[in-house]
């Protein structure tokens, strides 16, 4: 964790996150992420080998309900809020396009 995060890694992370950053934004992000990760290195000194990870505060598991039909959102109302709707469905540009 000691190596400073590189511009190439930050550019890859941006692609994974579906964010387009220009050169200036990319350099700023590299600097800021580097500073944060430097700060976060404080936990490297902890002995965490036998510690069980904790993902949430309430140890509820498999919250189930009876399998009965409940009211759902109105389709037309939901589609009315969508950027594009076609024949009762969400409309999107081609999935197989230039970048596919």
């Amino acid at each position, binding site marked *: 964790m000691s190596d400073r995060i590189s511009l190439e890694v930050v550019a890859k992370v941006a692609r994974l996150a579906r964010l387009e950053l220009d050169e200036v934004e990319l350099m700023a992000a590299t600097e800021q992420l580097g500073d944060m990760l430097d700060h976060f290195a404080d936990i490297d000194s902890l002995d965490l080998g036998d*510690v*069980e990870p*904790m993902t949430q*505060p*309430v140890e509820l598991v498999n919250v189930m309900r009876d399998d009965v039909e409940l009211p759902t959102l109105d389709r037309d109302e939901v589609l009315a809020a969508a*950027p594009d709707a076609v024949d009762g469905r969400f409309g*999107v540009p081609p*999935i197989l396009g230039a970048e596919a």
Partner: protein
Amino acid sequence: MTDTIRSIAAAVRSGERLAVAAVQEHLDRIAAREPEINAFNLVLAEDALERAASIDAEVAAGRDPGPLAGVPIALKDNMCTRGVPTTCSSKMLEGWRPPYDATVVERLSAAGAVIVGKTNLDEFAMGSSTENSAFGPTRNPRDTSRVPGGSSGGSAAAVAAGFAAGSLGSDTGGSIRQPAALCGVVGVKPTYGTVSRMGLVAFASSLDQIGPFTHDVADAALLLESIAGFDPGDSTSIPEPFHALSPALGRGVSGLRIGRIADLPAGADPDVQARVEEAFEVLAAAGAEIVDVSIPAFHYGLTAYYLIAPAEASSNLARYDGVRYGLRVSAADTNAMYSATRSAGFGPEVKRRIMLGTYALSAGYYDAYYGKALKVRRLMAQDFAAAYANVDALITPASPSVAFPLDSKTNDPMAMYLCDTYTIPSNLTGDPAMSVPFGSGADDLPVGVQVLAPALGEPTMFAVAAELERAAGGAR
């Protein structure tokens, strides 16, 4: 002095005062001062007056509208309101009208409350100053050259300015308690699972919790009682009834053991630290025993939080892709459309956190960052549990400083993150905590003392907060 929730509801229920008059009084204050404060993304003046008139009609017909009858309440603009714009202070959701009400909105309505508006926040609740809003910053009503704190800065400012008798915020790492401290109002983050998040736009799902802002502790108890309790719509909701808080308010602190965290991270300003010391003195004089405890993991809370919260955010915010709601920036294919939309719709801090979270979860770094952070979170829970074996509650500063000037931290993300040092641990553990106004610090600005308690320890927490409030002369 503005009216408390209790006094408004009592007067409206008894027919002594019209809800319309109570609401109009708050709308008048909004009209006078909102241009300067910018607490709201949307003021619902007409809706509120119409709703107030229907409350008055109920009273006239001999029916009881409920414990919040006619009380003007403001909602953080990350809580869904059916047919009413809900923006999260982001261009991504500008103009979006949710097709349903959040559970808290339904509960407020059932209790007779009147929603007066949707309040400003740091975009998607990410920030500690409400300066990360796409619609401009909110200013602190106590000193308009300063921030109100964040991310629920609009909700804190709305109560402090008398725009609403109470408001709701969400707290992921301190976003209720820190602005409450900076604006001089009461702010509560309840135990994780006590208030339904159904209809709260998700930031970090294992940390987010809704809670109240009010003028005083008794109002906070009443407002929290009105929104808490099991909701099958939220799978993390605790399947038990919420305990009544109002009986605890007069209990006092006699016989309680209250912890001072001996190894609390340094960083609180001397003026804030002095008020916290006074709080211990007040509680000791009122019959509490002050006990030193150790919470070594406290020191590592910031790191654990700023890895876990962005990791969860990067996943939660993947839904903003221009397909189902909100902004779409057109492009030749869907992949290009996703990227164009997200790049145009999210502000710099949201992008920063999505990047950090994506990195912490990515192959090769998961174990080093996210995995380690989850283990530190376990240590935090264990350390707090050990402390609570010896004490009933803990006292710390809520914020390391009083309200700071606008633009003083906007170019230094790490400096902004340090604002959350004392509030973060309660989100990691899920335990309740609240900020109660306790005197002033530098430049006569309010200081908030934080009271922390173990999970479902709200009655004790409110008893301690009420005692501090009595000593500070804050009860109405």
